[in-house]
């Protein structure tokens, strides 16, 4: 995972609520067995709308997307995060995110920034003309108008994003604890592993 420090640039001022992962990447594009090349299919139904901001040349290549609440709701498909990363997105700002999608975004080095609706509304206005900057270390979003909005982030996720850490590698280093838990399971709830395969 590539480390994140600051993300600065244009932001797509999309702003609508309940953008589900079927909208981010439709199911008929999930038949790939790789992670690459999904960006061109991202937000297909929104892009079919005349005058949509995602195809507005003013925002071409923007690394940030600003959306309404419940961004990424619906299916757990990580293809949504792959498609967003592939189209160059490195951060999404919204009042709230679906839990599963926020996790998928994080795993792909995309920062999800939660801000109150009023601040998101302000950023939607500013983004129409100016770039926006996100600084992960100080947990702030700033604009050329001197707006400065602080956001919260899980400390573990912050560290992983700042350092670009491999989460599986971190967990494998806790192998002794996992083995100890399995030994405890065999004593306390032996049926859990005993029954998984059909008799």
């Amino acid at each position, binding site marked *: 995972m590539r480390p994140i420090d600051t993300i600065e640039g244009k932001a797509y001022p999309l702003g609508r609520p309940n953008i589900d992962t079927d909208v981010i990447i439709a199911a008929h594009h999930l038949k790939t*067995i790789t992670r690459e090349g999904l960006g061109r299919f991202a937000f297909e139904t929104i892009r079919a709308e005349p005058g949509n901001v995602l195809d507005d040349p003013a925002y071409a290549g923007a690394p940030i997307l600003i959306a309404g609440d419940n961004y990424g709701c619906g299916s757990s498909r990580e293809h949504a995060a792959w498609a967003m990363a592939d189209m160059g997105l490195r951060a999404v700002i919204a009042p709230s995110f679906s*839990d599963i999608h926020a996790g998928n975004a994080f795993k792909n080095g995309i920062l999800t920034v939660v801000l109150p609706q009023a601040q998101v509304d302000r950023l939607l206005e500013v983004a129409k003309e100016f770039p926006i900057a996100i600084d992960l270390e100080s947990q702030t979003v700033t604009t050329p108008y001197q707006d400065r909005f602080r956001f919260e982030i*899980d400390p573990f996720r912050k560290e992983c994003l700042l350092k670009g850490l491999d989460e599986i590698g971190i967990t494998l280093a806790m192998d002794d604890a996992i083995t100890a838990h399995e030994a405890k399971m065999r004593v306390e709830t032996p*049926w859990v592993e005993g029954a998984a*395969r059909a008799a």
Partner: protein
Amino acid sequence: MTSANAPRTLYQKIWDAHVVQQRDDGTALLYIDRHLVHEVTSPQAFDGLAATGRTVRRPDLTLAVPDHNIPTTARADAVGHRLPIADPQSAAQLDALRRNAPAFGIELIDDLAAEQGIVHVVGPEQGFTLPGTTVVCGDSHTASHGALGALGFGIGTSEVEHVLATQTLLLKRSKSLEVRVDGQLGPGVTPKDVALAIVARLTAAGGAGYVAEYTGSVFRAMSIEGRLTVCNMSIEAGARAGLVAPDDSTFAYLEGRPRSPKGADWDRAVAYWRTLASDPGAVYDKTVVIDAATIAPLVTWGTSPDDVVAITGIVPDPAAFDDPARRAAAEKSLTYMGLIAGQRMQDVAVDRIFIGSCTNSRIEDLRAAAAVARGRHVASGVKQALVVPGSGLVKRQAEAEGLDRIFIEAGFEWREPGCSMCLAMNPDKVPAGERCASTSNRNFVGRQGPGSRTHLLSPAMAAAAAVTGRLTDVREFA
């Protein structure tokens, strides 16, 4: 932090029993007891393992079943040979699972096996899902498994790889949400209507950050299959998981299933499962109470699962929404859905009927639909009416009860098990501009195919819509 003897919720008990290591940063390494794998969200995870030389830590706790891509038409020729799949990409995903499962030592219930079906139907049906366990799958409807008192939740492909490699996940504990439904459900009101009522009350985002527990007399009286329907749609309210405390109904459902504990193990397991229910006085972060008597047979009108209205109701007027973003979303929804504010839901004509999906494809669902279809016929204006059992075993059971004959004689198509028309990944799709009365879980833009229009409803209501050719109050068929 709670003290050792403080009353705990069901969620907290399962969580506590699975913490491998609590970390200072607030995350915990959580042990995963059951991992269901399907063909869409796993190929990249297996590739990740291969690329790093990692193996599957507990193949014995992992079960692979293809379901999303698989056609629901006949799968084998007269001598039992697998028929080719027309879509090369679907075939490639199914082949990848067929290759990866044995390569990593994982049991595969493949397309021609009688036990094959939708992962969330197969897990409980096989007794693979057990109370008090943690169950994950690369699919958001893993919330279904909470019906058995298991903590089931959907994960992304990176997490699938993480679980394959370590049998754990790094997670932060969610907040707890109690959804209590007390009272008596009215005639024609099914678990699907309860699920839709809950999503409508919570809104599509209301459960985000929470694990829901469904309590109250309605759930105590509800069958396991009904509980599966309700827990399945937890994610439609944003809740990653939904739970019902295991009780005698749960144990009766599980006893004797292929992978349920046997003998002394069974007795010990049941004794443990009885300790899982939330303690009296356990505190939830939020509680929502719904009076069962207020729930009518429901149907969705828009493109978000919380766009719910009684079947006797009308299409809402976007101008009535206070929030400008919601108003704009509702206007877009009505345009997409081809509906007009004020229109009676019962006047909406439908082109297709879909009875199936991980929400409503179990034997009770098929019985409820068949009870309406019996002796009647699909209306002439309906282009297609599909009945897709959730698994080969559900199909076999339905055929033993003669339900297939009822459906076929009424003009429905009787299909092979799979995800089918829920999500447009296989040949079962709703063409652009057509309207489907569907027992599935999502009415998103394009969900059942590009340009498709979806109305979510119960199996009995779907059968009623098939017979009349329009959205219909099932109580007219009582």
